[in-house]
């Protein structure tokens, strides 16, 4: 059963940009979630404790506990079916855990927020399969992702300010899609779509980025570039990257978590993890 908190009715523009002292953009007007920005007093941006998820008897996550620090770049590895995507589903509110705690910062209970509230409070996600708005142009894709008031009324009257235009241009050049700005996103190559989606995340400017296999389908050069990009993002943002490409993981991660059968098998630096007998057994192979 889904225990979604009933959000306030969403037509009225409850969002006042001036009252938004912190990062949580709450156009739904939920006072609890709004607060005075994200509370990260203890240096932890994401807390997962004893999360359990099961689908029709199959246990996707078992007593999963995981902590991500502020400004950290964490890589998650693990064999297929280890629960990596399900974990992201739990964090983004797509799947409700059967039990356990999931907190964003110290105060935001992710298990009680809707997907939209979670996204607005500052968690961005890139899907495993690149998902962009295929019927819109690259520029329009980025425009929609732009960090701004996202209520219905605002969209009806929205006009891009010069500053916002500059920001979009900036991201366009970061993801190297300036020349394709008016192309329909559906016509981009797989790798370009990956970059566009990353660009959309950048536009959202979230505090925590969840990236599901971001370099799949990219050339080596692109992968290298992405690694640089992520490293530059860390510290200002926290990143959680799920990836199978060990080379890529090695080039970016300071901290790696190995998932296996729905719980954490090992955690530590890449070297430590790679030396771990159990990890070699289930994942890396001998």
């Amino acid at each position, binding site marked *: *059963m889904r225990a979604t908190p009933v959000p306030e009715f969403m037509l009225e523009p409850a969002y006042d940009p001036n009252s938004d002292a912190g990062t949580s953009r709450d156009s739904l007007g939920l006072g609890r979630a709004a607060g005075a920005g994200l509370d990260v007093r203890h240096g932890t941006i994401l807390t997962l404790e004893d999360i359990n998820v099961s689908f029709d008897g199959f246990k996707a996550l078992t007593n999963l506990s995981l902590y991500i620090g502020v400004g950290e770049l964490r890589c998650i590895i693990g064999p297929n079916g280890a629960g990596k995507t399900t974990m992201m*589903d739990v964090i983004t509110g797509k799947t409700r855990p059967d039990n356990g705690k999931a907190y964003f910062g110290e105060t935001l209970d992710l298990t009680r927020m809707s997907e939209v509230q979670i996204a607005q409070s500052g968690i961005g996600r890139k*899907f495993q399969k690149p998902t962009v708005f295929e019927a819109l142009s690259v520029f329009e894709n980025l425009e929609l992702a732009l960090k701004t008031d996202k209520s219905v009324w605002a969209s009806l009257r929205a006009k891009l300010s010069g500053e916002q235009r500059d920001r979009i241009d900036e991201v366009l050049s970061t993801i190297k899609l300036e020349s394709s700005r008016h192309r329909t996103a559906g016509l981009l190559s797989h790798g370009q779509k990956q970059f566009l989606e990353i660009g959309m995340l950048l536009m959202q400017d979230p505090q925590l980025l969840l990236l599901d296999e971001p370099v799949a389908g990219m050339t080596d050069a692109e992968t290298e570039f992405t690694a640089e990009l992520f490293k530059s993002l860390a510290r200002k943002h926290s990143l959680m990257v799920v990836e199978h490409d060990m080379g890529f993981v090695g080039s970016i991660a300071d901290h790696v978590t190995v998932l296996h059968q729905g719980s954490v098998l090992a955690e530590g630096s890449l070297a430590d993890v790679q030396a771990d007998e159990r990890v070699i057994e289930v994942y890396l192979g001998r």
Partner: protein
Amino acid sequence: MPTALLRLFPIFTLLLSLLAPHAQAGDAADFVAANPAKQATLLETWSAHPDAARLPLIEALQKGRLASDSNKAPFIQTDTGWQAAEGGDAQPASEPKKLPLNNRLRGLVGTAQASHQLLAKEPAVRLAAAQQLQKSAKPAQLQLLNARVASEDDDAVRDALSLALANLQLIDPDPAIRLAAVRLLGETGDPLARTRLETLLDPAVETDAGVRTAAETSLAQVKRRLLMGELLGQAFSGLSLGSILLLAALGLAITFGLLGVINMAHGEMLMLGAYSTYMVQILFQRFAPDALALYPLVALPVAFFVTAAIGMALERTVIRHLYGRPLETLLATWGISLILIQLVRVLFGAQNVEVANPAWLSGGVQVLPNLVLPYSRMVIIGFALFVVVLTWLLLNKTRLGLNVRAVTQNRNMAACCGVPTGRVDMLAFGLGSGIAGLGGVALSQIGNVGPDLGQSYIIDSFLVVVLGGVGQLAGSVMAAFGLGIANKILEPQIGAVLGKILILALIILFIQKRPQGLFALKGRVID
């Protein structure tokens, strides 16, 4: 009243009739000769003292076949000519003139016929007669009824007779007799007794306070007994409606749940099934009238194969191109349904065609005085369950079922494993359509068969599939019976239309609570 004498009474009449044969030999002549007032008296006398030998005369009267010639000799019209009413082979002196009867006399003839039929050998005839007398008995028949109640050996007939008797006694001037009658009525469970007792609550009708109180008590008893029947009746018609919904929705559950095709022409498959039944019936009437009773059994495979073949043809020509685009299948199949409906209109006419129940499907079991379970509906409930079991076996225990499930879950993988996906799609669609054809046979036995038959079921069937959960047979079964029973329970309270609207609202509210359980497979599926 001395009961011993009462018991003797029929024997006494019998003796009388034996001793004086031409006492009735003159009945017809007497009646023909009499004026209307005298005729009424005669009929009343006959009603009070029925005689088996007089039955042909009364039946002739009832059918308006009694006539007289110029000599005032009575004759009865037969299919071939005239027969003397007094027996013998006398011929009419002139073309006989039929006897005119006024409304009062006609009523009296009915009563007389009933009281004569009380002497019949078959309990069913006696029962019908007793039920007729409950409505029309005359005070003069009091003795007769008393006698028959005492001598009747069939329980159902005796109950019916008691009721007729009580009805008569209710207008007795003696409050004690009325009181006894009211108590007697209280022991029946008959809707007629309820209406009768309800009138007695009015002081203007019943002057005696004691009788009124007793009537109230009896009424409560009758109502309690009736309630049982009503509830069972509602549950039964709910089951019946549910089984029909199930037959309509089951095929849809396959095409929709397994293939992801929104087949708006599914209702027309029901319709075609019903028309196949009609055709089979026509063929039987023409070529094998003796075996006509068996035609529904033959219609089952015929309807199945006809609709399955049409379904497969549609799948190969149109639907095949639309997999993965459910909204498009919805529109295209709607177009198909328009064409099929119009085709049937052109071929068979826009009017309903007549599909008759064979004898073994008509009639029913009388469980309670106000509860008759028709055979046709009982057979359909059983049939629906049979089809569900068959479908389940087909999907879960056969190679075809395995292939269908494989294609449903992962089309590409199945193709790689050598499953001929195109053929499987076609067969699955044919199976869904064929089941609808079977449903059409069932529908033809309980409702009208016309070109628009399917249209009235399609929305309900979709609601069943949506409510039951996509691709789950068990869910469809539960949803069909749940919807059927809810419909029938709501209907008498708030009317059929409001009931339907309320159910729609309930479905919308229900899926608020259980959206993912009904609408999406649980799991890490994103778009």
